[in-house]
């Protein structure tokens, strides 16, 4: 219905305006309706303003900035309407260490209300996991999965 779409949009936008500066350590961002008169057909635009920079076309953003902005949108959707689980496959690949830190901090918070399954090659992301599975192929072509105790095992599983 029109009202429900409008209301949900506003709630997600509220969250997005708060989540973005948290992940980017500043700056601002907002969602916009391309056609506010028509709730049933309108599209949704995104204006992003990284800290200290001027708002630009999101296409001009860097690889890492785009990934982090997308994460901010996803987290905002979850904060408005939690889903029991969330699966993230290597979303941290384009992020530098400082951004992975902020991403994992917020991820840990979100994880109190949602079960997260996170595939990663990044040591910082591994450290925030409550449980870790190591996936290897002792026998080529055949997946082996083991529960991994954190700390010393990390480097050995990755290097296999």
């Amino acid at each position, binding site marked *: 219905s029109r009202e*429900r*779409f409008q209301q*949900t949009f506003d709630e*997600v936008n509220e969250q997005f305006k708060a989540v973005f500066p948290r992940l980017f350590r500043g700056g601002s961002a907002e969602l916009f309706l*391309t056609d506010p008169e028509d709730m049933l057909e*309108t*599209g*949704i*635009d*995104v204006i992003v303003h990284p800290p200290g920079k001027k708002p630009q076309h999101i296409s001009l*953003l860097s690889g890492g900035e*785009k*990934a982090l902005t*997308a994460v901010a*949108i*996803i987290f905002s*959707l*979850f904060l*408005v*309407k939690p*889903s*029991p*689980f*969330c*699966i993230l*496959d*290597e*979303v941290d690949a*384009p992020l530098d260490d400082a951004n992975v830190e902020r991403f994992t901090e917020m991820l*840990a918070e979100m*994880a109190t209300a949602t*079960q*997260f*399954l*996170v*595939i*990663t*090659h990044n040591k910082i*992301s*591994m450290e*925030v*996991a*409550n*449980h*870790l*599975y*190591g*996936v*290897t*192929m002792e*026998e*080529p*072509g*055949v*997946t082996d*999965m083991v529960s*991994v105790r954190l700390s010393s095992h990390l480097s050995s*599983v*990755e290097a*296999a």
Partner: protein
Amino acid sequence: MKIKKLEIYGFKTFPKPTELIFHEGITGIVGPNGCGKSNIIDAMRWVMGEKSAKGLRGGSMGDVIFSGCESRKPLGFAEVTLTLSEVEGSLPEKFGTYHEISVTRRLHRSGESEYLINKIPCRLRDITDLFLDTGLGKRAYSIVEQGRIDAILSAKPQERRYLIEEAA
């Protein structure tokens, strides 16, 4: 509603029956390239009713059945079971008063498919309906596949509205 576990057998690189227990909070999956991490995600999507082979990186749905390797012959079928717990109140009436519910999908090389809810045969449609009712089926922002994280941003404004629709 929680995910309890995922059991994979014969699906892609899982000729060895494998059980993945979902815990509270963050479950991390790590390992070298090509070892099967993303295949676990494919198994998840498949058991939840994924209809597109391309969506699972295959050419046809039969591509999800273990096709063999140097040390093993191909298998005759793929089977994935997802078990949800604490489902009271989240399910439609016809499912009665379960605490847990398990969903199984099986595909044989012959092309024959089987679908089961709590070991009782059903149709694929029942599985997709179940996930829609529980809100788990709203996968649009629940699953971010490898390399797809900036899809939200490169999408057209018209395409992004489904995110709000699904959260509404």
